[in-house]
């Protein structure tokens, strides 16, 4: 019943369709094949698929348009990895002695006393 309604609606909208043989064939074949169960499925699935299709199409078009206005993200080439030089694990217990020798100060005079006045007197030094 509803199939006939759709056919009438389409013919009303596009009268030229009546001229096409295949239209009459499809409507003659498809309309009687639409069982109530199939109709129920189509009633819900068609709008759902249409909505999903529109969303996906919109997203795809949006991404493409975005690519036109923003430059592509540049990913730098990875920095060359330099392997650290391997140092021997063993540390000699005599290294602190070597360090102490290197830090030894050979300068003389050291320690140097402060400068003191050893001639404290109320009389002239020449008189002493």
């Amino acid at each position, binding site marked *: 019943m509803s199939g006939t309604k759709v056919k009438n609606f389409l013919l009303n909208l596009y009268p030229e369709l009546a001229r096409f043989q295949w239209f009459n064939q499809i409507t003659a074949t498809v309309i009687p094949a639409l069982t109530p169960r199939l109709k129920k499925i189509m009633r819900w699935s068609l709008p759902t698929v249409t909505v999903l299709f529109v969303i996906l199409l919109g997203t795809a078009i949006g991404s493409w348009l975005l690519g036109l206005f923003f430059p592509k993200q540049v990913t730098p080439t990875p920095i060359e990895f330099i392997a650290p030089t391997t140092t*021997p694990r*063993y540390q*000699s*217990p*005599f*290294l602190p*002695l*070597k360090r*102490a*020798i*290197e830090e*030894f100060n*050979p*300068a*003389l*005079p*050291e*320690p140097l*006393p*402060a400068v*003191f*006045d*050893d*001639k*404290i*007197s*109320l*009389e002239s030094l020449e008189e*002493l």
Partner: protein
Amino acid sequence: MKKFFLIIFANIFLFSAGIVFAQSTFLSDYNFQLDQYRKNYAEYTNFKKDYDDRPTLNNEQKALLSARQTIISRELAWANFYLVLSESISKPGVNYPLITEATTDLTGIANYHFTQANKATNIVTRADLTNFTKEELTVLATHRLSLTQAQTANKLAQLIKFQIDAKTAYDSLVPKLEAVKNDVVVKNGLDQVQTYSAQINAQIEALAKKTTDFDLDESNQSQFYENTSQSLREIRGLQNRLVTVIIDLDTNYVRH
């Protein structure tokens, strides 16, 4: 319970006081007396100037008292300086004739200055001050030689300690090299250690002799310091090479 806490607190206090005391009392006393001396000396200079400008009894008394205080702090600073040096020489714990001599001399000189600090408290008149300074100047001249020798002994004590430590290192290393003792490099290394050791010992001995024989009246002090510094530098260089060989043998030829 209270007693228990009291004992704990007392122990903590005594322990921390011990640590503070262990941080060279002599150095701390020397710095304190040096500060006192500088303060007193500035005051003395002013009073002496006043006295020189206007030699009144009042000005003389002020200058005299200030001079006495300055001398006391000076003597105590000197005494502590010698004790600091003596402590530094004894620190490595080396038993060597020059070092023993130096520490004995320094203790004697420090005691002399402590006595002088006490003696200075008796300065009352201008004549007392003059006599004190006169006597002090003659004695101080004899201390110069001991100070020069002690400064060298202080450096030698450190180098001898390095030599003792190097010998201990060598002695602990030799048994570990038993398995590779015929290896040419190991053999050369051990020979080098022996050679360096002999050279260092000879140079230390020569420097110690030179220091003991040093005569301040006949030689130039700054020339002595310069030559001694050069010798110390050479000994340090040899010790550095010696320890480098020991470390090389230990790192590369001993199985760890």
